[in-house]
């Protein structure tokens, strides 16, 4: 039982580590999409804690990514703090805002909750655009320093890739452990039936708030890291509502009930624009056409998966794995046996 889990993880880690070399020497492809995928994995996995595990709708997850990024960037440009300080501080911004936003918002249910989180995403984005003096307005912030460790400075996509993916793998592993822990089960219980969960002694509201804060913290961490791995600039357009919708699409496509599913969804969806672009080039389309096709494809994917396959692409495997078995695709699909 444990051995196959270990084996699968080793294969996965090896594959992730090998990617930059494959991209460079075998297929000669820019590494940026693979780097972005690492950020998206952290975002999708953290969102699935709230959406898949706890069953709460959050359409504003991108906001925390932005909050982490801007906090780190502002501290770096205005106070000259180095990356190893701005990143923890950006993460802490995620803790605080996660609580400030989560506490009121989680008193709401279903449609109202969805709307409230969407409003948060929009509000935060507008704030980034508007607060010129602080956030550099529409143009954003630039001259963001690279991550420094002693004499080493991480400036190439290659080095960024490894830093980001080491953390992404860590996030996957820890969130998976979390989802199988006693608290993870409490979350699944309240997902199933909030009132009944309350009646077996689970403090439903606080548990929801705590998982929301956990997920916003991870997203903010990813954002703070992003600020230092993004060619030295960030601008509001990267943190608009589309980002939040993209993340939710990843969660839905990959499998709402599975941490690994979310990671798979993140990889697939973040690489999708690349595939579309190559196809666009192949058919000699121009950039605006390709962008529109991007949007259409995303919308369709989200709708189709929501209607026909809410358990996502890894959902089918869920049906086959019996509860208690730990494998690389360990869904908590205990709903079937």
């Amino acid at each position, binding site marked *: 039982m444990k051995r196959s889990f270990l084996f699968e993880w080793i294969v996965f880690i090896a594959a992730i580590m090998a990617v930059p070399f494959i991209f460079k020497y075998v297929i000669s492809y820019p590494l940026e999409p693979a780097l972005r995928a690492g950020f998206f994995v952290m975002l999708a996995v953290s969102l699935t804690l709230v959406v898949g595990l706890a069953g709460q709708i959050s359409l504003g997850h991108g906001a925390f990514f932005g909050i982490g990024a801007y906090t780190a960037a502002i501290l770096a440009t205005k106070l000259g703090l180095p990356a190893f300080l701005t990143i923890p501080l950006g993460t802490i911004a995620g803790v605080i805002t996660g609580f400030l936003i989560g506490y009121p918002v989680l008193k709401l249910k279903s449609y109202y909750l969805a709307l409230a989180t969407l409003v948060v995403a929009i509000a935060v984005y507008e704030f980034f655009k508007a607060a010129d003096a602080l956030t550099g307005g529409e143009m954003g912030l630039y001259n963001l320093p690279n991550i420094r460790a002693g004499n080493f400075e991480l400036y190439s996509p290659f080095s960024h890739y490894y830093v980001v993916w080491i953390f992404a793998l860590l996030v996957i592993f*820890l*969130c998976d*452990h*979390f989802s199988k*822990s*006693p*608290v*993870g*089960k*409490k979350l*699944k*219980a309240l*997902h*199933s*039936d909030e*009132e*009944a*969960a*309350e*009646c*077996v*002694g*689970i*403090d*439903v509201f606080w548990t929801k708030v*705590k998982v929301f804060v*956990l997920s916003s913290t991870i997203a903010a961490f990813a954002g703070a890291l992003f600020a230092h791995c993004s060619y030295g600039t960030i601008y509001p357009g990267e943190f608009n509502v589309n980002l939040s919708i993209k993340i939710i699409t990843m969660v839905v496509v990959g499998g709402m*009930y599975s941490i690994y599913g979310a990671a798979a969804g993140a990889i697939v969806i973040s690489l999708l624009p690349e595939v579309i672009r190559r196809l666009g080039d192949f058919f000699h389309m121009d950039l605006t056409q390709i962008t529109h096709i991007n949007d259409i494809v995303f919308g369709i994917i989200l709708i189709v998966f929501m209607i026909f396959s809410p358990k996502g692409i890894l959902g089918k495997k869920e049906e086959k794995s*019996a*509860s*208690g078995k730990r494998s690389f695709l360990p869904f*908590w699909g*205990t*709903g*079937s*046996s």
Partner: protein
Amino acid sequence: MLQVRGVSCRFGGLVALDNISLEVKRGELVGLMGPNGAGKTTLFNIINNLVSPTTGGVWFEEEEITGLPPHEITRRGLVRTFQNVRVFEHLNVLENVEVAVPENNKTGFLQNIFAFSKIRLSGRFIKDKASECLKMVGLASFSLRSSSSLTFGQQRLLGIARALACKPKILLLDEPSAGLNREETLALSRVIEKIHQKKIAIFIIEHDIEMLMSLVQRIIVLDKGRKIMEGTPDEIKGEEKVLKAYFGRKRGCPI
């Protein structure tokens, strides 16, 4: 141990409960009867504060619990089940019971992410407690099954196992035998007796007076939100008021 004092419950113009006062003493087995719509489940909802009373209050172990959040009331030892069970469908049978074990609430959030060995230890402890409860209701062999794959009667027992995991001092059972056949009802009665032997007080809503006859020491009867009678099963059985409430004016109907 459990006292309901002067509880009324009004939903707009509808009076669901009208000045109800009753008591369940430590270790007692008390039945609650009444036709549908009498307010029995509403009374349970008020005791456990899923619904707030319009007037009156609830006392448990000499302390007022009116207005406390339901999870807090459960943690104090007052545990209720639901008529339609409400199993956690995202969890298997064993996990359904595990989440109810009180120790579950003591591991800190962060520890659940990082502390691997501590979680494994507490996980084992919780699993053992949960298995005990499943054994007590006879569902031990179904531990790893999905909770929705159980039959209705088995889900009922799961609901009771889950309630037991909460370490109750008093157990409020809401129509546990509804929808069960004769065999299942007998099995259920045996489980209830076992629980009672553990000095856990039981307050049980039931229609099946045969079942109640053999189990309870005292029965309270509600009708249209009012308490119309209280007594031993024998006293209740032939009482005209009770017959009238259930069957209308006809006399001489065997229950």
